[in-house]
């Protein structure tokens, strides 16, 4: 098992009032699952993604990632885990605008202390994996949306993470390019990669093999679909 949460809860205080963004979520995710988390805006799916992505810590409950309890770790330890275990893919790509595709892909390796030469080699390899090797020296503004997202996916994969966490990965793409990205996910999945896609689009969610919908901070349904 890759992920196991118990009573995962996130509570905010807004104007003296307590609001539960997430309440008592028990979730188990195996390796090599291709899962979608879906739900309307304000449902808590983003909160769940932030917690699963180790960007945030829960108010209560436990989160085992790779058999490691991460819910009580400090900021720097979480940064290490994000660096090693999680590859993020964002709706707006979130590439550094002034850096080349190659440098963007290298970035996680910079923070794991990999030397320059090895970084470059591995980044080129990752770019090759998403068929972007020939654009290595291009900056994000010289790339199309689909190309940017593929660079972002290469960056997510660079450190061989346990988990790819994609937040509306096709939200800023036209349907044809979005389809290409989804196929790329499927290819990665069949290569053994665990992928979680957070989306509010039904069509995207249905491509996954398991769909968890969140409603009012709780799991409303958890459906496994045929591959």
């Amino acid at each position, binding site marked *: 098992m890759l992920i196991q949460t118990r009573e995962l809860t996130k509570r905010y205080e807004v104007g003296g009032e307590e609001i539960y963004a997430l309440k008592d979520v028990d979730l188990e995710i195996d390796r090599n699952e291709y899962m979608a988390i879906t739900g309307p805006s304000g449902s808590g799916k983003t909160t769940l993604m932030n917690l699963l992505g180790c960007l945030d810590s829960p108010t209560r409950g436990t989160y085992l990632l790779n058999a490691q309890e991460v819910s009580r770790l400090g*900021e720097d330890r979480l*940064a290490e885990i994000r660096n090693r275990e999680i590859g993020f893919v964002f709706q707006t790509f979130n590439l550094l605008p*002034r850096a080349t595709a190659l440098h963007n892909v290298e970035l996680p390796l910079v923070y794991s202390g990999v030397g320059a030469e090895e970084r470059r080699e591995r980044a080129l390899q990752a770019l090759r994996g998403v068929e972007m090797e020939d654009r290595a020296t291009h900056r994000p503004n010289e790339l199309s949306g689909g190309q940017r997202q593929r660079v972002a996916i290469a960056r997510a994969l660079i450190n061989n993470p346990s988990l790819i966490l994609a937040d509306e990965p096709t939200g800023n793409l036209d349907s044809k390019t979005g389809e290409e990205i989804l196929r790329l996910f499927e290819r990665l999945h069949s290569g053994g990669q665990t992928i979680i896609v957070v989306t509010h689009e039904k069509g995207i969610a249905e491509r996954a093999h398991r769909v968890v919908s969140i409603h009012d901070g709780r799991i409303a349904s958890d459906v496994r679909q045929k591959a």
Partner: protein
Amino acid sequence: MPFSEGLLIALKALWANKLRSFLTVLGNIIAITSIVAVISVIQGMNSYVEEKVAGLGANLFVLRKGPFIITSHEAADQIRKRRRITLEDQEEIRRSVVSGRFIGAHVSSPHKVRFHERYIDQVEIQGQALPVLIPADFEVERGRLFSTTEVARARNVAVLGLEVADKLFTGADPVGKEVKIDETGYTILGVAKEQGSVLGVSQDKIVAIPISAYQKQFGDLDSIDVPMEGADESAVAALKDEVRMVMRVRHHLKPGQEDDFALESSESLTSFWKQISAAIFGAASGLVSLSLVVGGIVIMNIMLVSVTERTKEIGIRKALGAKRRHILWQFLIESIALSTLGGILGVLAGYGLCLLIRALTPLPASMSPYSIALALGIVFVVGLVFGIYPANRAARLDPIEALRYE
């Protein structure tokens, strides 16, 4: 993350905002330019004062009526009332001291020098006894110096300074000709070696004549200077004691009474100059620190702007695994690099200013590695100190909020 990585990120970020970076460090540039220029001028002056203005050899001192430098009217009045130093004093010293190697005599005043229709005003006429000790490197280049006999007999003979020779004779050989000093004729024996100028005043606009001839023409009411040289430092100290005793006896001073004459060495000049230069340096440092603080605050402000502008970037970096210290270092290095670049520009500008000063004024200015190191050290610290707050703010950003920032 290694330092080189951080530096590269910082330089790229600074380069992306060239104009802003430049304007930000303007304060630093101005501060460093002025500190480098001030240090250069002061240091240049220091060595200049030691070599040229003081102009006395290491083992040389001068018996005078008063010190070289008088700092108050009261002191000046008091010194004016003192007994003058006379040639008889010099002769007595010559007779009685044992530690001295060379003992000269020197007196001077400005007069008009004429050769036929050509004349020069305000030429320094130097009455000299032998050996000539002031100026220290006095040498006759063409012809010869007057002899002891000529000094003893008060002959009207002269050695011209190079400038006087050039102006009166324009290339012709002056040796053997006669010049008029205030309408008294002197036979030219030789021309002195070029001395150059000190603080823009030519040292070659002189005529040296025997001190006996000088007193014959101008009278002996002027107090003379008696330069003396010892073989080494201890000989100089012994000589000073001897001279002091001779003079106290000649002036009938009682024990406990103050000396009414001065024994001056080049140290008295250089130490006075050092006091002045320390004061100048202190005042300049005050002004420079003030502008560096202002410069530092500007840097801090711009770094805060930069942190805000790059909130998203910070979020991305954090999501990808950057720890607090990575972000802290990134921005700290950036502010240090910014400040130091300003410092480097300041050093270059200061160097330019230094060359300009040297070219346009008689002030000697020389750039020292010490002032460069000091300047760069200062701007490094400014960048560090004023970068801490913005860098810390960047490091503490919440990754989720930072990522959401547009």
